[in-house]
């Protein structure tokens, strides 16, 4: 399945794009998605365990990602 990953702020700068289409096995976990990102140029500038949101809610490493989900890497937030 293809999952579109959204990137923001410093993470978008690190990977040079604001979204990435990722090819993943169906029902992959967030942890597996993070492993898949590691092969991308610039991914070495991401922290070991970036926060991830699935469908606009914070997810954990064992959260399951399904086709059509909106997945995003969340850099350390700095609102206010």
């Amino acid at each position: 399945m293809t999952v579109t990953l959204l990137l923001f702020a410093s993470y978008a700068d690190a990977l040079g794009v604001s979204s990435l289409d990722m090819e993943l096995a169906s029902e992959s976990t967030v942890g597996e998605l993070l492993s898949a990102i590691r092969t991308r140029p610039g991914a070495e500038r991401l922290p070991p365990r970036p926060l991830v949101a699935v469908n606009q809610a914070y997810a954990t490493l064992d959260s399951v990602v399904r086709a059509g989900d909106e997945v995003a890497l969340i850099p350390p937030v700095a609102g206010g």
Partner: protein
Amino acid sequence: MTPLASLVRAPIDPLSIIRDVSNPRNGAVLLFLGAVRQVNEGRDVTGIDYAAYEAMAQRELDAIVVEASEKFETQDVAVQHRLGELGVEEVSVAIAVGHAHRDAAYAASRFVIEELKRRVPIWKREHYTDGTREWVDPTGRASAGAPS
């Protein structure tokens, strides 16, 4: 109840957000404004641009307002966060709370700003007098955007 939470690109009007939480029930009406500071960690700042994962930031702001309303027992909690380019002294965030009593109004206002800073996906990039720009990382780790 429609949560009074919004992400805005135009300058924040403090009087307008006060009006959102003012009514005959409230003996206390409290306004907090966060503004762009000229010096951050010893560096001279000329401005900040705020970016957000807007759909999720809106959801989190809505949830925080609902949580504050339930926890502190008032329907009158409002928050606005600015996005885009801001100069020094401009208001980046406004929180207004109306409550029957002041203690709960102060506590609710504090709750909203602390939760906002903890979980709302908003980022700020500071612009410095030497022309450089950097994403701020409040966790203190080296920025992912900085040269390694």
